[in-house]
């Protein structure tokens, strides 16, 4: 034992390096240990299913002839499939209208609530946020009933003016019917995010602006909005991803209006129909991946055009 320590003594430097290396290794291990639980879940519930779906999407199963490897044929089919393309075109159109609308409403509400500090403002904030707390499915069912011309309030309201109520579940108006449901549900949520961002702005900036003679409108447009731009871009990305993956609301309203909302109404619904009601998991997977690609392109394009303003990604 003693001889060992004696031997060690004259060579302190490599030993120190070794110890440092051991510490490093231990730190590494500790790091992996900490990441471990997340890593396992991440691999098991995200990477593995994605990989499996990708694998499935490279095959084709026919009622006659069974399963065969087709490489990217399913993708070629998806991008020439009128059902997928019309669904994709619908969600893109829907995004172009619904996202700006929601953001404008959310921003206006957040700015108003930020500059008013009465008890009423707090109450309003809660009420505006409330629709987000209602599950999407319940919200869609509720609106389905409100749109009803047989027993919904629309007939009575329009009746007062001697007009017939519009049918928001008809082919012509379903776009607006869904637009209303989505805006109702999400504008309050976005409002809260923007409101929180506004609360983080240093109030001395407003004071300085006021001393320089800026009015309320100028403070809002020149100071508040530029300062919360990162939050705005964040919710834009959220809503873009959410809208392109549109599923819950139309799927629920389909029970009331299957004629208007076809099984291929949005790409996600089409993937669901293919996989679960037509037992075509391969093509369903391919549609999901194709939609994923579409979402990626749209989000990337958006981030590219706003790259100067973003700070969170």
């Amino acid at each position, binding site marked *: 034992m003693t001889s060992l320590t004696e031997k060690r003594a004259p060579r302190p430097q490599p030993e120190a390096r070794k110890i440092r290396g051991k510490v490093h290794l231990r730190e590494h291990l500790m790091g992996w240990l900490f990441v471990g639980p997340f890593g396992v879940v991440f691999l098991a519930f995200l990477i593995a299913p994605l990989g499996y779906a990708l694998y499935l999407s490279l095959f084709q199963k*026919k009622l006659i002839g069974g399963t065969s490897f087709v490489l990217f044929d399913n993708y070629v089919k998806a991008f020439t499939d009128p059902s997928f393309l019309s669904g994709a075109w619908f969600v893109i159109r829907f995004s172009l209208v619904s996202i700006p609308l929601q953001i404008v409403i959310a921003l206006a509400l957040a700015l108003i609530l930020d500059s008013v500090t009465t008890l009423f403002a707090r109450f309003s904030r809660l009420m505006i946020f409330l629709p987000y707390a209602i599950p999407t499915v319940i919200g869609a069912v509720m609106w389905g009933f409100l749109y009803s011309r047989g027993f919904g309030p629309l007939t009575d309201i329009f009746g007062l003016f001697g007009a017939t109520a519009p049918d928001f579940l008809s082919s012509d108006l379903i776009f607006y019917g869904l637009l209303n449901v989505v805006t109702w549900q999400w504008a309050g949520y976005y409002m809260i995010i923007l409101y929180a961002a506004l609360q983080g702005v240093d109030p001395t900036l407003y004071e300085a602006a006021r001393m320089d003679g800026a009015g309320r409108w100028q403070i809002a447009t020149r100071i508040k909005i530029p300062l919360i731009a990162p939050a705005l871009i964040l919710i834009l990305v959220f809503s873009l991803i959410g809208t392109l993956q549109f599923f819950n609301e139309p799927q629920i309203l389909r029970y009331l209006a*299957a004629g208007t909302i076809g099984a291929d109404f949005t790409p996600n619904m089409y993937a669901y129909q293919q996989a*679960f009601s037509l037992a075509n998991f391969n093509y369903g997977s391919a549609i999901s991946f194709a939609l994923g690609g579409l979402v990626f392109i749209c989000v990337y394009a958006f981030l590219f055009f706003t790259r100067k303003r973003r700070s969170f990604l």
Partner: protein
Amino acid sequence: MKRRRILATVAMLAAGTGLVACSSDEGGSDASNCTNTITKQNVPVVTMWGWYPNTQLVVDNFNKQHDDVQVCWTNVGQGSDEYDKFQTAISAGTGAPDVIMVEADRIPTFQIQGALVDIKQYGYDAVKANYSEGAWKDVSVGDAVYGVPVDGGPMGMIYRKDIFDKYKITPPKTWAEYEQAAQKVKDAGGPLFGDLGANVPAVLMALQIQKGATPFTSDPAQPNAIGVKLNDQASKDVLDYWGGLAKKGLVGTQDQFTPEYISGVINGNYATYISAAWAPGYLTGAGVGKGQDTGKFAVAPLPQWDPANPVQVNWGGSAFSVTKQAKKPELAAKVAYGLYADKESLTDGWTNQIIFPLNLTALKDPAFADLKVAFFNGQQANKEVYLPAAEAYKGVAYAPFGQYYLDAMTKQVSEIIKGSVTGSQAADRLQEDVAKYAKEQGFTVQ
């Protein structure tokens, strides 16, 4: 209240079965969580999925009457809920029951995937005479039999007697008269005469068949070939007829089986409802024909195209099939043949309007024919309408991709309602769409 009590009973029974299952390990592992209680021990068990409201009674009756086999029943959901589970079990190769309740139009879909057993060799001859030829055709693919018929949906025209009386019309016997009557009611400021629902393509399919269409044909000698004929003149005529009625504002264009439609039926917004024999039970459950509306409904035979050569058609109906995953197909077939085929179960089914039976022992029961249906204010609906319709029904060959066909039809009917295509154009588009899908699925389309 009643439903709640049933639910409570089911829950209690489920709990009870759990206890029984714990105490005895005699049965197979699949039979460990039946909804029903199996009292006879050391007897082979056959598992079964089904959703008839009186399945409990039906299964108990069967188990009481048999000492060589016992049924273990699970309700995994109704219609597409069950089909989705069965489909998953087929894909997985495990998890399916031995016997499954399926609607007749689904049989080819599962059969083509090799998921069902041809039960002709397991005692078909002994029960052949118990069902009509049309009933057997609906559960057959080619010469092979893939199910035992249980209930059917012979079609008739349900109408509001009060509306017919008010506008002085008699039940139309032909479709031409139907349109005239609709026009008459409209001109007098009355309600809509009927409804063209995009979400009930099966009705339009039946009405096309009534005019002489044969949407799908298959030849057992060539299982890879299928005839798809969705745009022949008869199919076009029927779509044009209904599209015309909708365009003229004679019928509504509301999706059916929705609260909106039912509230319309209750409010008397529709003078007629073209539907099947199970409709009175469904409508009663949905709250129609109660309170002020009691006894306002009546039923008449389905209007015809050619009254000299009437054709009767069917909407809905179900059967018991044996799955390929059954370990003892012969035993499973015995269950499929015997379940819901005893007098006691059948009588319970038709007196409570749960099913329109296809078993001839029930159909020929004088009490069945004489039944005074409360929903129709005591009208003997079976004798007057549904029995003759069921007897004259010839059967249909369904498609092995029925779900796709029905979804595609819904899409086209929606276009007709929108007014963007005529019925004929919709039929052409449907033909193109479905034929393309059939080819994609590897069929030779004829």
